């Protein structure tokens, strides 16, 4: 057993304070356990959001010693003995109370993305047929638990308040998962470039650094999308090829194989 000082944000969106708590740490504890202990023993109205305690629901996102993290997956033994732990709510979103922030802006971004539109001729009496190697790339993005840590760390939203111009990394990879879908026939590139603001991302890769699901958002999602934008709007070679041969026709996977 080991004594620790926790400094936890108490307050609302305008102002608050870092309040200090002395806590006893047992082996195997994670930061969320400590917050719960403070809540049970010292501060009954401390607000914290959580759900699964297994790193799968994405509810317990907060900032621990300045780093956006899942509190339920952050073990106490990551920190030096005696180190003070500072816990604050997500910086990029409005604080509702204490450690709980209002992430509803993200839900509205999701709604702006055109849903999947499957090629009608791809439908067979066995349903839709796809091959593993065609969906490998997309499956990486499907691991997302919507914790919004990437949205929180992205400096475009966090430091420059460009919520009206940039949709954020989580939704960039949602667009990527639809654009790379072998059966999808929708085109989202014009809005990706304009309304969703793919050009705002300067690929500094912080979204990739914080993702608890280890999704390589920048290299596998955002940059490939930027390259598709280059194809469509900037590369004279591919633009000329399209002018001469017309747009590439969407081919569908073989049904019997």
């Amino acid at each position: 057993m080991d004594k620790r000082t926790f400094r936890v944000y108490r307050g609302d969106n305008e102002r608050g304070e870092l309040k200090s708590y002395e806590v006893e740490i047992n082996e195997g504890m994670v930061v969320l356990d400590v917050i719960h202990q403070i809540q049970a023993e010292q501060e009954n109205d401390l607000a914290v959001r959580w759900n699964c305690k297994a790193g799968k629901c994405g509810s317990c996102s907060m900032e621990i010693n300045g780093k956006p993290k899942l509190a339920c997956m952050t073990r106490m033994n990551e920190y030096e003995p005696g180190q003070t732990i500072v816990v604050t709510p997500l910086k990029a979103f409005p604080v509702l109370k204490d450690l709980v922030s209002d992430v509803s802006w993200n839900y509205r971004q999701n709604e702006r993305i055109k849903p999947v539109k499957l090629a009608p001729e791809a439908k067979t009496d066995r349903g839709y047929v796809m091959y593993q190697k065609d969906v490998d790339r997309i499956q990486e993005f499907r691991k997302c638990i919507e914790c919004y840590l990437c949205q929180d760390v992205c400096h475009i939203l966090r430091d420059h308040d460009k919520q009206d111009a940039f949709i954020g990394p989580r939704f960039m990879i949602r667009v990527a998962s639809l654009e790379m879908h072998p059966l999808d026939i929708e085109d989202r590139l014009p809005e990706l470039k304009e309304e969703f603001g793919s050009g705002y991302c300067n690929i500094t890769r912080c979204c990739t650094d914080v993702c608890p699901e280890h999704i390589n958002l920048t290299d596998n999602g955002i940059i490939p999308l930027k390259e598709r934008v280059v194809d469509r709007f900037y590369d004279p070679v591919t633009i000329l090829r399209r002018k001469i041969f017309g747009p590439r026709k969407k081919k569908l996977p073989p049904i019997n194989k």
Partner: protein
Amino acid sequence: MQSDTSIAIHTRGLGTTLRQDKWWIYPALILFGLTSFLVYGFWSAWQADYYWYDAGVSGFGGYLAPFYSPLLFIKEGVAGAAPMSHSIFGAWPEWWPQWLPPSPSLLILAVPGIFRFTCYYYRKAYYRAFTGTPPACAVGALQRKRKDGYRGETGLMVVQNIHRITMYFAVTYIIVFFYDAYLSFFRGGEFGVGLGSILILGNPIFLAGYTFGCHSIRHLVGGSRDCYSCSMVGNASHESWKLVSWLNRRHELFAWISLIWIVVADLYIRLVSMGVIIDPNTWS
């Protein structure tokens, strides 16, 4: 239970953070690494001399400093200059401005320079280290004073989209460097090996490792497809995409190895050509 002074949660400003680790190490190393490279590169290009070494033996072969390759024109009568037969277009042009040194390097630096400048890896590196947007993750970014604030790569920096175009040209440098490596294993038409040849051979190898991990190439060989099993070429495309992706995951590594290697090779040949150091080799 003591209360600390009130804090505003949404404070802004360069470097503001609650992080307690040494987040400044990465940007500091990048700042140092890239600045040193730029200083050396421009200095070397400005010298306009001592970029060639063949120990005074005429005939096929010799060391050409990588910052000076390919040689479009050659100014004769300069110390450590290559023989005229190595020039692609011949003698030094008349129109070259007086105030600029007659350096073949200045003619060819732009392509690899812009290629690296617009590379998706280097962009991360210098946006963090030089422009502080952001200096490190969850560390306050430099605030923009302009009315419309931060514009990323939608404003002036939209030029980053020429990366694809520079890539088309940059791949030719790998071929040029392989030729230089071939050349470096001969002196006066005789085959041999020197420390210089090994250094020069490293260039195209590491440059290829870097270039073929490029995101633009990754896109062109397969990333642009939504489906690999849908067409005849899909399989080949998938295999090459996997290969490029392997290099792509090591893009940062190759970016630095190739950068450091080219400086070492260039400096080495300059020093050998000046007679400051002696090249160990099989010819002498």
